[in-house]
């Protein structure tokens, strides 16, 4: 039985190295940045170091996220809902600081509601994405927020826009974000095809998130999925023991 092993050494950059023996593949060397004792800025704020994903299909979008929120090494919430509604057919996936992203989403939700009343019709996904971008770009120094905006509107159908940290905006057919996303770029690049159906997108998203949660210590819990189409919204949850598993 392999046990967890911590090596209290430091690498050449002064960061503590930890090698984990808790999986068949012994690849876990992760530099743990330990802030100096007594440093007030090291107060662990809740963050969604996470894995989030969104995929476009003909007629809508599928969005997904893990469910872990951490304050330091403690999991403050293991069933977080990172898929937040900003309008009837427009959602955002939140990663980064939990407080920052919640505040931004509330502000954009308010602005979108007001805009939609003025227009007298449902807002465009591109509008929502631009509102997120304006806020994330203006306050880029203060915020730590990586957001994926996805939804359906009458003009362009299903759309996914990504607003990573720094405040850029770009539309992509498939987008991933959060700390766990690094591990699944290869999987996404090789498995995504244009013209997938809603069920295929749901399967693809669940597989990708499960793979990321397996490798990223900061992602885990359950997989929350949502499919947004003209007809409406369908939310689902895949519990930990029902996640797709892979032979490695």
């Amino acid at each position, binding site marked *: 039985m392999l046990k967890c092993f911590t090596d209290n050494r430091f690498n050449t950059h002064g960061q503590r190295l930890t090698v984990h023996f808790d999986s068949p593949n012994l690849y876990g060397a992760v530099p743990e940045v330990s802030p100096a004792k007594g440093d007030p800025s090291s107060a662990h704020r809740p963050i969604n170091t996470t894995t989030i994903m969104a995929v476009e299909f003909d007629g809508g979008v599928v969005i997904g996220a893990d469910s872990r929120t951490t304050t330091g090494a403690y999991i403050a919430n293991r069933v977080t809902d990172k898929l937040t509604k900003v309008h009837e057919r427009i959602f955002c996936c939140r990663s980064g600081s939990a407080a920052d992203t919640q505040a931004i989403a509330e502000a954009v939700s308010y602005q979108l509601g007001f805009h939609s009343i003025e227009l007298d019709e449902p807002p465009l996904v591109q509008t929502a994405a631009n509102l997120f971008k304006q806020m994330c770009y203006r306050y880029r120094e203060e915020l730590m927020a990586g957001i994926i905006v996805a939804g359906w509107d009458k003009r362009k159908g299903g759309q996914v826009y990504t607003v990573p940290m720094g405040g850029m905006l770009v539309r992509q057919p498939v987008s991933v974000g959060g700390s766990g996303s*690094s591990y699944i770029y290869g999987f996404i690049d090789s498995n995504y095809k244009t013209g997938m159906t809603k069920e295929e997108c749901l399967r693809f998203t669940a597989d990708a998130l499960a*793979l990321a949660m397996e*490798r990223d210590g900061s992602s885990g819990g359950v997989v929350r999925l949502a499919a947004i189409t003209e007809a409406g919204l369908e939310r689902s949850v895949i519990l930990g023991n029902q996640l797709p598993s892979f032979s490695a």
Partner: protein
Amino acid sequence: MLEESSLQPEWLSEEVSTGTTIIAIAFEGGVVIGSDSRVSAGASVVNRVMNKLSPLHDKIYCALSGSAADAQTMAEIVNYQLDVHSIEVGEDPLVRSAATLVKNISYKYKEELSAHLIVAGWDRRAGGQVYVTLDGLLARQPFAIGGSGSSYIYGFVDAEYRQGMTKKDCQEFVVNALALAMNRDGSSGGVAYFVTIDKDGTDEKCILGNKLPTFFDE
């Protein structure tokens, strides 16, 4: 216009690293080991066609990653030690012996060195084997990935690996994994080298950049 604050370009003072992607996988009767070919010094690519697969013995290769100087030196030292060892025992060395020699250096000089070698090869006793020596540990695995580009393909290799793959499956697996990592990692790129080692010998191949597999957005 930008003014150079010193007379020397920045890359001359950056450490040269093979920030890289390396991968090795064992199949029944042998191994396939592969790497990209980019060597960077900061933002500059100082060698775009470096072969990071270094022979330690006829049927044992290692893949280099991390600091270029450290990795090359480790490989050379182990090559020498293995030659001496194989003369002493009078037969071809075991892959495990080669991996142990690499591990001994990695562990003893852990604070000074920053290189990671994956050792893979074939021997008569245990067939195809892959060993990782990260941080001075020694572990045998069915397959292994390493280097900066490996982060991006963990999901891919976890999903695609199955037990009982044939030699051809393994070669495709290695080339696809390298291509995906090279597309996403700024420190990996160039051409893909891979070596297939089995009881009949070693077969070195190189796939040029424009012949690598392409994916949906290319």
